[in-house]
């Protein structure tokens, strides 16, 4: 194991308290409380907190208007910048521990019987994800429309929690886009094995985060495998919610999909998986 690997106490904290952290994050960032979002007078991730729209260029947009999008969604810009920087250094903790959009999907999927769960784990997620992201970025640029805001997870999940209290949010789920979004959240979230198929396939913020994770892998702390200790048993790949572990020839972790949920580290009986910087 790497000498730079974290102590077992640190590992156990992020692993042991992941579920409570996910719940607290959802409570603080989602309606009806949304305490953090309400600091700026907002109730959801639209407008100032929008983390998805500001980086899409629309046909006919001037540079000034494009930059104004950054100003208009300044909290969303700050959030995405913070996510990318922390991911570069420490891995995708936003996705694994803090994301309020993913939290209800993963926690909800734990309540679904295994027999009913859909297993997408053999789908090559990066290929799918960046195919979708390409359309997400190119379609508005060439003028055929935008996947924002109608197909937005950062709009749908908060609206889902606000629907019992707000007529507007309830009506959203009676519209075509709302039904489609709800179907995607159920199909790729709650009924997916691990609850992370939506994150892994369709989330644009997750796609950018994964790039930061991949490019920072040589420098920052990541989930890694000690090949000398690994027996290629495959237990880790069975529990990985983002299908990032491949055991075809030897066990490897795809940093384009991995997030430090630490489940692989927990199940490894040979202490071959650790969180830390690359071994020298």
């Amino acid at each position, binding site marked *: 194991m790497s000498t730079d690997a974290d102590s077992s106490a640190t590992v156990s904290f992020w692993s042991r308290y992941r579920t409570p952290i996910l719940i607290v994050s959802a409570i603080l960032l989602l309606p009806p409380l949304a305490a953090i979002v309400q600091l700026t007078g907002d109730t959801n991730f639209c407008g100032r907190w929008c983390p998805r729209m500001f980086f899409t260029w629309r046909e006919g947009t001037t540079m000034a208007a494009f930059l104004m999008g950054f100003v208009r969604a300044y909290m969303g810009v700050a959030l995405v910048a913070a996510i990318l920087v922390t991911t570069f250094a420490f891995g995708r903790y936003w996705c694994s521990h803090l994301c309020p959009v993913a939290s209800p999907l993963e926690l909800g999927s734990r309540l679904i019987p295994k027999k009913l769960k859909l*297993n997408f784990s*053999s*789908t090559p997620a990066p*290929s799918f994800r*960046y195919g979708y992201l*390409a359309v*997400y970025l190119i379609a508005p640029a060439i003028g055929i*429309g935008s996947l924002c805001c109608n197909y937005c997870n950062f709009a749908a999940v908060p609206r889902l929690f606000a629907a019992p209290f707000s007529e507007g949010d309830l009506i959203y789920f009676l519209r075509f886009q709302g039904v489609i979004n709800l179907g995607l959240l159920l199909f790729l979230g709650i009924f997916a094995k691990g609850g992370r198929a939506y994150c892994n396939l369709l989330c644009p913020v997750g796609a950018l985060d994964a790039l930061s994770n991949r490019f920072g892998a040589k420098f920052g702390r990541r989930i890694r495998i000690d090949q000398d200790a690994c027996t290629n048993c495959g*237990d880790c790949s069975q529990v990985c919610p983002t299908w990032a572990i491949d055991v075809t020839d030897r066990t490897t972790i795809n940093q384009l999909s991995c997030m430090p949920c630490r489940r692989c580290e927990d199940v490894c009986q040979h202490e071959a998986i650790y969180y830390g910087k690359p071994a020298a």
Partner: protein
Amino acid sequence: MANRRLRIVAGVAGVTAGLAPYLPTVVCPGVACTSCFACVGAGGAAASALIVGLVSRKLGRRNPADQRPPTTIGEGANLN
């Protein structure tokens, strides 16, 4: 790593998923609705393509561990 064919299929499925919401408006032949259901057909075709892409694991098993009998964590079941 998944095999090349599987990655290409997944990439096409991702593009299809992105384009699917646009297809009904692209195929719509008129300003007023004549109930031709072209939009429904396009949406259905896109959804079918997406589902085929998503279940493309049938084309190839990525992970040899999937083909092994399930291990019981904690009992030291190492099939190697």
